[in-house]
């Protein structure tokens, strides 16, 4: 592995040399004024560890073009990303991970907080992260590991989350979304408006949830609360009794045959829904879009109890310093400068700095994705494929409505160990 990387580096260096020569020639002949990055001593390469969510090829290509930084993606599942940070902190430079993982990652001391002063757009980051409210001033539900609770550290090498703003930021936000249930309106044939419907016997053998314990239990808690069985103080941080109660409700449903299958993988969720094996299940926004692009009716149903939200962001490995750290800042600054944000918005996610992303989107795209307006023209995915025909309206509506409707965030509980054991019990029941 190291060998191939090194070789790649060498060949790239040779390439750069020859390019530099060419550039020099060109500059000498007065055609081109110069490529600033070509002159740097070594190739700028950053190893980027994260989930597949924002590791698009288009993003890395554009980044190389704009900054000369070559991004090498290391793609893993949410759980594996955390595992890698714990066990191999030197195997990556930039880390893109979810906020709820911070409760595990920060105490391990394996990551470096970033300096807010060096992030050009920091003050323009959406108040969802900094204040827990939408740009329009709507308060956002803070149950679970809400980003603003873990955004700042007390000091540079501190392992404690600060209660007020400091300049040491754990994760610079990149992407986030509000998740809810996906439904097949063509098979259900009546409006769905509550999380409680997931356990409605009407959908016996046709429902599904995620088999990722830390996310699945949040969906379960939304269902329990919606059905009026219990009201949690904090769904994202249950007591042992609350975990027992939640799992009891789910176990009864499982034994009664409510669930067709649990899913763990993006494609699994798409297949379950597209094949009609399930008609109601917890889902991710791009998965709903994918089912729809197959010509099958699928709605990302807004529910009266609100959304379960998640967010991820950038930090760097503790092993990164010197020039590499500067490139990391350069990369994060580039990421927030608009291209990547627009790319993510077009997939149905949300970008951290809204103003720069808006500048990179067509007004009709912005109106559809962010303002909840009917599409003036056909809506296309970043790869050019058709997502929605003109006239369509985004499920859940505008950014204000969707993010403003968030009830809780993905979380790691204090009783995580107990919860995982109970989850195994639930699967075995």
């Amino acid at each position: 592995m190291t060998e191939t990387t090194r070789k790649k580096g060498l060949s790239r260096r040779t390439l750069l040399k020859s390019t530099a020569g060419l550039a020099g020639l060109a500059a000498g002949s007065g055609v081109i004024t110069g490529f600033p990055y070509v002159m740097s001593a070594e190739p700028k390469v950053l190893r980027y560890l994260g989930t597949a969510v924002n590791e698009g090829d288009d993003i890395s290509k554009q980044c190389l073009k704009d900054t000369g930084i070559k991004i090498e993606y290391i793609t893993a599942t949410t759980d594996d990303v955390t595992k890698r940070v714990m066990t191999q902190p030197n195997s990556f430079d930039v880390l893109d991970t979810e906020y709820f993982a911070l409760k595990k990652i920060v105490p391990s001391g394996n990551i470096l907080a970033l300096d807010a002063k060096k992030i050009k757009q920091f003050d323009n980051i959406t108040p969802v992260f900094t204040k827990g409210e939408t740009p329009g001033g709507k308060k956002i539900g803070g149950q679970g590991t809400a980003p603003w609770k873990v955004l700042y550290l007390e000091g540079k090498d501190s392992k404690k989350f600060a209660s007020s703003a400091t300049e040491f930021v754990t994760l610079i936000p990149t992407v986030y979304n509000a998740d809810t249930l996906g439904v097949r309106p063509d098979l259900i044939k009546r409006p769905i408006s509550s999380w409680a419907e997931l356990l409605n016997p009407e959908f016996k053998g046709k429902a599904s949830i995620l088999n990722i314990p830390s996310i699945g239990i949040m969906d379960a808690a939304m269902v329990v609360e919606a059905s009026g069985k219990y009201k949690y103080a904090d769904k994202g941080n249950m007591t042992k009794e609350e975990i027992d109660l939640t799992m009891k409700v789910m176990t009864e449903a499982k034994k009664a045959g409510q669930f067709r299958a649990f899913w763990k993988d993006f494609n699994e969720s798409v297949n379950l829904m597209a094949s009609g094996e399930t008609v109601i299940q917890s889902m991710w926004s791009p998965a709903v879009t994918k089912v729809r692009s197959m010509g099958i009716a699928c709605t990302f149903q807004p529910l009266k109890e609100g959304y379960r939200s998640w967010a991820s962001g950038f930090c760097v490995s503790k092993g990164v310093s010197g020039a590499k750290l500067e490139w990391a800042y350069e990369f994060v600054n580039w990421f927030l400068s608009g291209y990547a944000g627009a790319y993510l918005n077009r997939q149905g996610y949300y970008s951290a700095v809204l103003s720069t992303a808006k500048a990179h989107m067509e007004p009709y795209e912005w109106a559809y994705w962010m303002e909840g307006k009917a599409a003036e023209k056909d809506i296309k995915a970043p790869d050019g494929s058709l997502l929605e025909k003109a006239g369509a309206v985004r499920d859940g509506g505008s950014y204000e409505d969707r993010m403003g409707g968030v009830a809780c965030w993905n979380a790691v509980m204090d009783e995580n160990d107990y919860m995982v054991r109970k989850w195994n019990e639930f699967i075995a029941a």
Partner: protein
Amino acid sequence: MDTSEDILQQASPDLVRGSETARRSKAARLSPSFISWLQAGPMMLVFLAFFLIPLVFVVVVSFWDYNEYQLLPAFSGRGYTDTFEGCIAQLPELCTIAKTYVKTLKLCFLVWIITLFIGFWVAYFLAFHIKSKTWQMGLSLLCTIPFWTSNVIRMIAWIPLLGRNGLVNSGLMKTGLINQPVEWLLFSEFSVVLALVHLFTFFMVVPIFNSMVRIDKSLIEAAYDAGATGFQTLVNVIIPLAKPGIVIGSIFVITIVMGDFITIGVMGGQQIAAAGKIIETRVNALQFPAAAANAVILLVITFLIITMMSRIVDIKKEL
């Protein structure tokens, strides 16, 4: 017990004679046992470095403590006590780990019986009914087809076949045998066993076939000449002589199924517990000691099963 030199002598007397000349110069003299060690050495080293040492680590770590983000190298039985939580208190109801193993063993037994039955007859057909070596090779290669796709592809492929709106269900509905789609075809124990049998029958076929082709045909002729019926020949000649293959195939299938959680997860709709699944969930939650403890338990149980099987047949002797 043959020494390696005897074997060499049988295999190639010239070589041994050559080595006798070499033996006169004392420096080049290698004792036979040293040669044996040298031959077995590379495999032994690989085994030591990549199996025994990691295994020792797993056992050691299973007795460590842990918190949310790191291992604590202090002796703790927590990995085990947590695993067996409620096993006495909940009686007569089974605890999680007991339920999981009952389920895993049940699946394992079903898969073993079915793969053994199918595998035996496929091997029988290949060994005794196909005369040409080329055809034998070609047909055994056909058995590897299930391995040509990844798990995700297989998962996607089973839905259109066994799903609610799948081929089997729509076929049955058209013939009027059923009015409602049959739900237990997919995401059930049935589909798990089906997928595992589909995958692992190959591991039965190969060793049994291998044992069968080595059966001296004159033994079978002798049995017929002595007036044995086909069934008697099968029970008294072929099965006893194919026993090593049967046991080796069984060990393959049982060890794989005991540790499998991916196929069980995918085909069981993640709703069926598996011993391997518990380990995976624990590892994903960064609870390595608990995962290691579960791995040790799985290892012990699998080892017990294999010991029992090798009691039935002395593989070393048979080989």
